[in-house]
């Protein structure tokens, strides 16, 4: 534009907040930062509650002492560091990874229904895990040993990734259309679920029962050998997803506009979807196909922060808090501890119905 700098209007915009320092300028959203801080506090609180009440109730000072290595009460020390802490970390990994994956897929597909559980990734991971259970299991104790420690998580991870790749390739036709992505995802999802059901009929009773618990989504018996490597993987993937978040807003303007603004939309979408598939697979390996976490958390985070598209970091925090609270509730709600997936279903199902009704109304 040809007007001189002097008579350029210098209005600041309330809706575009910027921090500038020399050549560096960073956009930020005050409400997003505030909500993020609150979620962080909630996360720490939920972690504490989960440690203290994720079984027989323990006093908070005892939990704290045990966490810092005080082994005077060997029983409490063992319970906290070897049973409850890995389970608590598993809940955080599962919640944050599934929710971040959902935030990415919902934004890329421009559809709040397009979460990894709809796109077939978590169902694929279940299929992998159940296949190992049925093939290698048997005997009164069900699956145990190397097959359980390494085989099941690996199979779940590989099958989750494979389903994601299959959905992408089948939906690809010179580009990715979001409706086709969702429809193909639903197809692969149905396919994986049917295969899993068929496998269940082949297994013996113990294996089938073990498989069903896994498929419900459970954090029972998660220990450090599984959780520790997943923690590293999750941290890397979450960082990558959050770093790519700013490009997601451009993608949400539609393909043509994004390309017009100089985005290599195909590459951005492929990268972000790959990260989402890996995140969903990690989450499923840790906790099974926990339903509704990936679907609901990103939208809750979006509403809380007032953002235009689900923010990745706030979604991850929301998901982690959601799963921690759900698992604490599952451990205490009834006389018998429930798998955490029961609680996420009970909370999530009404939300899904609401979402479909609202979405339909907007379309018609």
């Amino acid at each position, binding site marked *: *534009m040809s*007007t001189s700098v002097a008579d350029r209007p210098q209005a600041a915009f*309330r809706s*575009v907040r910027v921090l500038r320092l020399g050549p560096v*300028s960073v956009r930020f959203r005050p409400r997003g930062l505030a909500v993020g801080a609150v979620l962080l506090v909630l996360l720490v609180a939920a972690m504490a509650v989960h440690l203290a009440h994720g079984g027989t109730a323990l006093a908070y000072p005892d939990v704290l002492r045990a966490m810092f290595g005080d082994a005077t009460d060997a029983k409490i020390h063992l319970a906290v560091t070897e049973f409850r802490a890995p389970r608590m970390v598993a809940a955080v990994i599962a919640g944050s990874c599934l929710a971040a994956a959902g935030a990415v897929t919902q934004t890329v597909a421009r559809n709040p229904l397009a979460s990894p559980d709809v796109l077939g990734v978590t169902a694929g991971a279940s299929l992998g895990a159940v296949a190992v259970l049925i093939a290698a299991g048997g005997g009164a104790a069900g699956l145990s040993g190397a097959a359980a420690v390494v085989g099941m998580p690996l199979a779940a991870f590989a099958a989750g990734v494979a389903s994601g790749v299959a959905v992408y390739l089948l939906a690809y*036709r010179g580009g990715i259309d979001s409706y086709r992505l969702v429809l193909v995802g639903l197809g692969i999802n149905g396919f994986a679920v049917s295969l899993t059901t068929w496998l269940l009929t082949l297994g013996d009773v113990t294996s089938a029962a073990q498989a069903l618990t896994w498929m419900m989504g459970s954090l029972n018996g998660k220990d450090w050998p599984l959780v520790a490597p997943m923690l590293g993987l999750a941290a890397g993937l979450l960082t990558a997803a959050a770093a790519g978040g700013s490009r997601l807003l451009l993608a949400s*303007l539609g393909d*043509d506009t994004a390309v017009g*603004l100089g985005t290599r939309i195909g590459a951005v979408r492929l990268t972000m979807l790959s990260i989402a598939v890996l995140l969903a697979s990690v989450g499923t390996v840790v906790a099974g196909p926990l339903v509704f976490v990936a679907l609901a958390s990103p939208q809750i985070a979006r509403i809380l922060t007032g953002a*235009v598209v689900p923010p990745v970091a706030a979604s991850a925090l929301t998901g982690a808090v959601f799963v921690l609270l759900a698992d604490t509730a599952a451990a205490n709600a009834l006389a018998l501890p429930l798998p955490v997936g029961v609680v996420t279903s009970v909370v999530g199902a009404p939300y899904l119905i609401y979402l479909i009704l609202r979405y339909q109304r907007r379309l018609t």
Partner: protein
Amino acid sequence: MTELPLPGRLRAESLTLGYDGRDIISGLTLSVPDAKVTAVIGPNGCGKSTLLRGLGRLLPPRSGRVTLDGEPLAKLSTRHIATQLSVLPQTPSAPSGLTVADLVSRGRHPRQKWYQQFSGADQAVVAEALAATDLLDLADHPVEELSGGQRQRAWISMTLAQEAGILLLDEPTTYLDLAHQVEVLELVRGLNRRHGRTVVMVLHDISLAARYSDHMVAMKAGRIVAQGTPAEVVTPDLLQEVFGLAAQVVPEPTEGRPHVIPLGAGLRV
């Protein structure tokens, strides 16, 4: 009809474009006149929007090429192209909650770096783009709360913030009432007159296209049938040939531009 215009910055050479195995445009050659407003007209399905998508590298050529300053678009980075050429797709949609200023600020994306997300200069350009489209007062309003004409101005404002010399608009007046159509077209012509921008727009209304463009391209079945000044292109013979429309063409009273009076489309009812 008239001698070929001087080679422009943006050219299509033997361009073939299509979707799903079907060619929509084949072997089309066009030079977009610099610093002029060009309107592309033609019946539904003639390939005018496809041509615009091809010129804006939204649709890769099957064969032939589109060049910008002599370089094929395929050889330029899409980010570099975005600094020279901006595209407004047909009926673009913004996610709900996005404000006008936020939308327009995205026009700066091709010139930004990861540590330079919105510099003082970016802010000045955005404010200017908003002023040029008379949207400064609505800057912090959500796009979805605007009227149709305001919303279209917001999108045009985003393409202005790109500071690209060439502006491609795909049916910028769709779904607008007549007053808003005129508002958008006057804005577009003003951008050309005041800022020297080259504009290519696809329009449905032939009379409005003739009124607000310097150069017209008439298309039929994926080919260019005629191009030239509005007076050269908009004739009864051409309307019959391109649209199958029997029409009279009269000079409109303000500038004497051709105005179409339809007589009949040959349908016996």
